[in-house]
Structures are given as C-alpha cells and as structure tokens.
C-alpha cells in the first residue's frame, strides 16, 4: 500500500469512519462498503487538499477518482505532478 492510501486509511480510521470489521482493498468501493457518503467525501477532499497542498477541482469529484483507494491515489498523484 502506498503513502497516499495509508494516509487516506489513517484519516478514515481517526475520524471514526472505518472500523476494524472492514478490511479495505485498493479497488473496493468506499461507498458500497459503507465507508463514505457524499458528506464524508467532502471531508476527505478537504483532508487531501491540506495534506498534499493541492486543489481538487470540483469536476473531479467522480466515483472514478474518489470511490476507491486506487482512484484517490491516482488522482492525488496526478494533481501533485500537475
């Protein structure tokens, strides 16, 4: 698991959104596994923007970019190298 995935998981655990019963794989849907909804998604976006000093354009808020750890990691990498 890469650094971005670990940071995302840490955020979700710290904020109480992820309990020990859920074991997430990189391509698991965060919404279908009940980890996030649209409100938590915005909190996650805020966390990622602050953590990586990036700005996530609203038109990037799509399931392809934010519904899996793999998608989040790829999106953040893209914006960092932007």
């Amino acid at each position, binding site marked *: 698991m890469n650094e971005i995935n670990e940071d995302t998981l840490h955020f979700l655990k*710290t904020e109480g959104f992820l309990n020990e019963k859920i074991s997430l794989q990189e391509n698991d849907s965060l919404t279908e596994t009940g980890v996030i909804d649209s409100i*938590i998604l915005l*909190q996650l976006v805020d966390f990622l923007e602050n953590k990586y000093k990036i700005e996530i354009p609203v038109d990037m808020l799509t399931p392809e970019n934010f519904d899996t750890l793999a998608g989040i990691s790829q999106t953040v990498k893209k914006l960092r190298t932007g």
Partner: protein
Amino acid sequence: MAKTTKTCKKCVLNSATPGISINADTGLCQFCDHFTPVTKEKKAEYRARMDALLTSPPQQGTYDVIFALSGGIDSSYTLYRLKKDYPHLKILAVQFDNGFISETALENAQKFCDLTKSTYLRLTLDQTALLDTFSKAARSKDAYPGSAKYRASDICNTCISIIKQKIIELAVSTKTPFIIFAFSPGQTDAPFITLTKPFLVWMRKLFDGNLKAMGVAERDAYLIDAAYIKAGSSEPQVTIIHPFLVWDYDKPKFKKECIQLGWIDPELKDHNSSNCLLNAFAIKNHLDKYHIHSYAYDMAALVRQGTMKREDALQKLAVNESDPSIKEVQQKLKL
C-alpha cells in the same frame, strides 16, 4: 467484568459509543486529540468569499437564493441575518412539510418570510408514502454508511437527504445560483460546495442506494429529477453555502434575537429540535439500534469548537423517554 465508560475530558463523546476511543494518556477522544481549530485568517477568507458571492449574485433566474427553512431557531435566524447583511437578495424560502412539522414552526416560517420579504414555498410530497418511508427508515439497519450514523439518525438522514435532493432540483430547474442551509458547524465541515453534474449523479445514486436498502420501492419522487443531470443537459451552476461556518455560532443569542423578532418557542419536550415532532422518536430509535445518540457528534463538535458549553451539551443529550411524542410517532409509523 463490565468495562468502565470513559467520557472525553473536553467534549461529550464517551467510550460506550461504538467507534469512539478515549486516549488513556490525554483523556481525549480521537476527534479532540486531532482537533485543529479554524484560524481567524481562514474565517476571514470564508467571509470574503461569501460576501463576494452574495453581494453580486449572477442574474440567471428569478431568485438569487433557495433557502431551506425549517422554522426552527437556526434557519429563522439565518434567513433574518442574510437579508440584514445582503438586503438585495431575492430569496425563495422552502419549508419541507414531512408531516411532523409543528404548527408553531409553520407559523414561525411564514412570519420570518414576511419579515424578510422572502417568497415562501411549502414543499409537500405524498404524505402516505412519506410515512411509509420513515417507518422503513426506523426499521432499517445499516442502510446508511457508518459515518452517517454519527451525523444523524436513519430517519433524519432520510428526511435531510430528501430535502437536499428536492432543493437542488429546484435550484437547477429555476436557475438559482445559490442554495443556503443553516447547518450548525457541528453538522458540516464545508462552507461552500460547488455542484457539478458528476457529483450530483453520484449523490443521487448514493441516496437511491440508501432508499433501496431500506426497502423503498418508489424512489423517484425523493430524488433529483434525472432529466436535469443526464448526459447533454447543461452544468448546474449552483453553489451551496453554509453561513454558520462563516459567521460565529451562538445559539442562545440567536434564540434571544429571534424571540425579539416574533419567533415563538414551540416548547417541544425534545431538547434538540424546535420544529420537528419526529425528532425525539428518531433519536430513541437510533439509540436502540446502534447505541449512538444522533446529536452526540454534532454537540461534541460544538463543544470542541468552543461554541457550546459542555454542561449544556450533556443536558441536551439526556433522552426524555417520557416525551409523549415518542409514542405518538410510533403509532403513526405503525411500529
């Protein structure tokens, strides 16, 4: 041997609530342990952005703002303050009648619309279907993600989601640039949300999934009309604003000011709502199902941010089992 319940030294969350852990060294819950307050500079930045948006709204429809008005203290105060700070705004205030709004809340909403010269709209849906939906929400388990369970009860999450979907639909269909919700700083973290079509499609799909998990068969009436977000339709051009993340939040002061303006206290026995008769039952139902008080997270955040006294929050979290509305609602929902 039974575990001892530990309560966070700073807020009101305790270790009996699933997912809450108290740090043995600091005596704080995980939220207080990692809490960073919003800086003055950030608040000033939010204020400047809200001023810029609301001072000269784009002229694209009949209204500048669609405002979600419950008739409770927070929304009544926000409507008044918005018109005080931005007198030119053309506001359509929407009160969602879920079948459990107190008569006083209906009266308060209309009174504040008159006071602020806002247009009043009472949004109603099929009341029998709504009752059945709330009943299904009460009987459901895990229809919403774990995170949502901390934010509100299953019943309130359903009601709030319907309001959001229908208000967004109204804003898109009337080309209104802003939607304003009077959520407290404990209920939301984002002062501004710019809506895009992909995000709306996703929001609609998620709520549709929640309703489906509850066993609601007829769901379209509760969701954004798909025609407004289908491929080829225009971009929404709508921004949601939460003013209580920009202004200081002081509920006792708001209540005093509202009463001076003619707001009437419905004096419900429920400590957490001044408008909805469904609320006390919804809290009890959530506690019974998940052992989570649906206002604990909200109150804890307000205490953490310094906008509510800890003892006031603890008092609000005491469940009044003898509230007669609990039994009344239970009968109405056929539970």
